[in-house]
């Protein structure tokens, strides 16, 4: 990906992410999150992760985010009031965040050695990032995590029903 495409995309992603945390109305935050997720999917396509990009749109933006929107509308939420009392805490947390980000970004731009591996300039094999490639890995090397995920989803379904259903146990 050339810098010409990376930087505008990155700037947009950061702007939408800031929109998520800074918007006063939860619906607007959710829509900013939707934009962020779509832009991330675009980023994934540029990184040759085609199946993951599709899943990002279908699962993350299409299911998880829709669930958020359902709940926001079900509970009929309204915009938050601007928080005057917590100004100091907000400033402090944001300042710490910025400092932390800068501190962690500095060592990343070390000239000291690249990571082992083919790198971004190598040619991409045909099956990279496709459903076939990922499926093969998923059912051979990662078959146990795959099955564990099944149990996790069972727990989640069980839990969601137990907690949210109208009729008490």
């Amino acid at each position, binding site marked *: 990906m050339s810098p010409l495409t990376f930087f505008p995309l990155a700037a947009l992603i950061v702007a939408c992410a800031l929109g998520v945390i800074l918007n006063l109305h939860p619906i607007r935050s959710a829509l900013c999150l939707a934009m962020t997720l779509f832009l991330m999917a675009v980023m994934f396509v540029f990184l040759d992760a085609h199946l993951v990009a599709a899943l990002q749109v279908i699962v993350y933006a299409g299911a998880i985010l829709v669930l958020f929107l359902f709940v926001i509308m079900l509970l009929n939420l309204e915009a938050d009031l601007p928080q005057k009392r917590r100004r100091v805490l907000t400033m402090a947390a944001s300042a710490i965040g910025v400092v932390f980000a800068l501190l962690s970004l500095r060592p990343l731009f070390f000239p000291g050695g690249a990571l082992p591996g083919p790198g971004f300039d190598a040619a991409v094999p045909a099956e990279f990032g496709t459903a076939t490639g990922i499926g093969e890995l998923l059912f051979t*090397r990662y*078959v146990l995590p795959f099955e564990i995920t099944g149990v996790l989803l069972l*727990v989640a379904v069980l*839990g969601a029903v*137990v*907690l949210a259903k109208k009729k008490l146990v």
Partner: protein
Amino acid sequence: MVMPDVSWAVLLPTLLITGTGFAVLMADLAVTGPEKDGLGWIGLIGLAVAAIASVALWNTAETSFAATIVLDRYAVFFNVLFCIAAGLTLLMSMDYLGTIDLHSGEYYALILLATAGMFLMAAANDLIVLFLGLETMSVAAYVLAGIWRPDLRSSEAAMKYFLLGAFATGFLLFGIALLYGAFQTTALGPIARELGASGGLQRVLAGGGMALLLVGFAFKIAAVPFHAWAPDVYEGSPTTVTAFMAVGVKAAAFAGFVRVFMHTFAAFAVEWSAVLAVMAVATMTLGNLAALRQNNIKRLLAYSSIAHAGYLLVGMVAGTPAAGAAVLYYLLAYTLMNTGAFAVVIALGRRGEPNESLDDFDGVGMRYPLLGFCMTVFMLSLAGIPTLAGFTGKFYLFSAAVQQGYVWLAIIGILNSVVSMYYYGGVLMRMFMADGGKDVQGTAHRPYLAATIAASAFGTVFLGIFPSWAYELAHAAFLSLR
């Protein structure tokens, strides 16, 4: 396509527990109302079978499923510990749930599935399996914290636990991402081998990954400064769930923490043990000092739980096999004494009256001598009085620290134990020397609760008088980390 190696023996304990969870869910369809408490029996049988299967597999040291899961003595030790914790919880629940009018088959299934997650955390040979096991256990725990829906405190506890738990998961996951970037794999074996030889950008990523993993684990064990969720969550959840969290979830978090840090990250031991030493001091001190000010027994036990995590961190700092064995032994002792303490708290309550304030303990020991005796055993063991399991545990931990030169840490630990005697003793003084007329139900009509208290008390005393066999097992378990 290369199929992975499949060794069912390695997966057997986890399969048994998960299968038991499914069986409970199926049986749940056939029973209604108060009969649901019988589902606990299915759980207990399943746990017993899984524990026996684990013990039978004591001498295996195999990895399986493309080296993502391992069954070594370490995993077997923790499997048995989780079975004990879950078994005692199920036993008490069969009496407790009737008290709060909660007749839920899903409760039993969730406890069993959470235990399955714990098994995976102890047996993980890959960061992804560790992560998924942690999530399975945690999601089940979030639900269990909020399962008593009529009570607002339960829903609040679930919300706080969920939000802070998910926050910690974010840190843990980003740490795994950085480690993946540094080493092109998430398997613990290759990471351990390549960690020492890393340099440049790889080292930066590895360091960042370790730091974030430390934050994630610190949240789960409720170490300072990531402990803020524990008192509220422990107080609001139903008491059996609190016991399960304080004992099982904490042990599972330590199982993962010890395997990843003391074994996989051993090359960086100097760096992370310095951080853990500071954390240990802060955790012990804050836990004990805050416990002094509590009026609610569940919050008191929550802060005591935080303090005990601090003692365990001292063992991790010491870093030797003897220290690792001490950590494992202490977790076993802690399982028994803490569950017993919570069981006594349940015994003090009755339908409609939880009786969780310290004032409700006044005079109980005089009117219910057996209950008072058992609580004495638990409180003194938690404080570290000799001939009880807590003392031997602390002895092993602090002597391991001294042997490695951490004398100051051991001294702080001992001072903290002395401070803790004040509030544990305070509970006992109220029970035996204060005048109170509170009519508590005790263990009348609650045989399973009585069995839980008796078993825990027996275990605490037995481990205190005969500690060596358990310590040897813990030592063998720790040495099996490969």
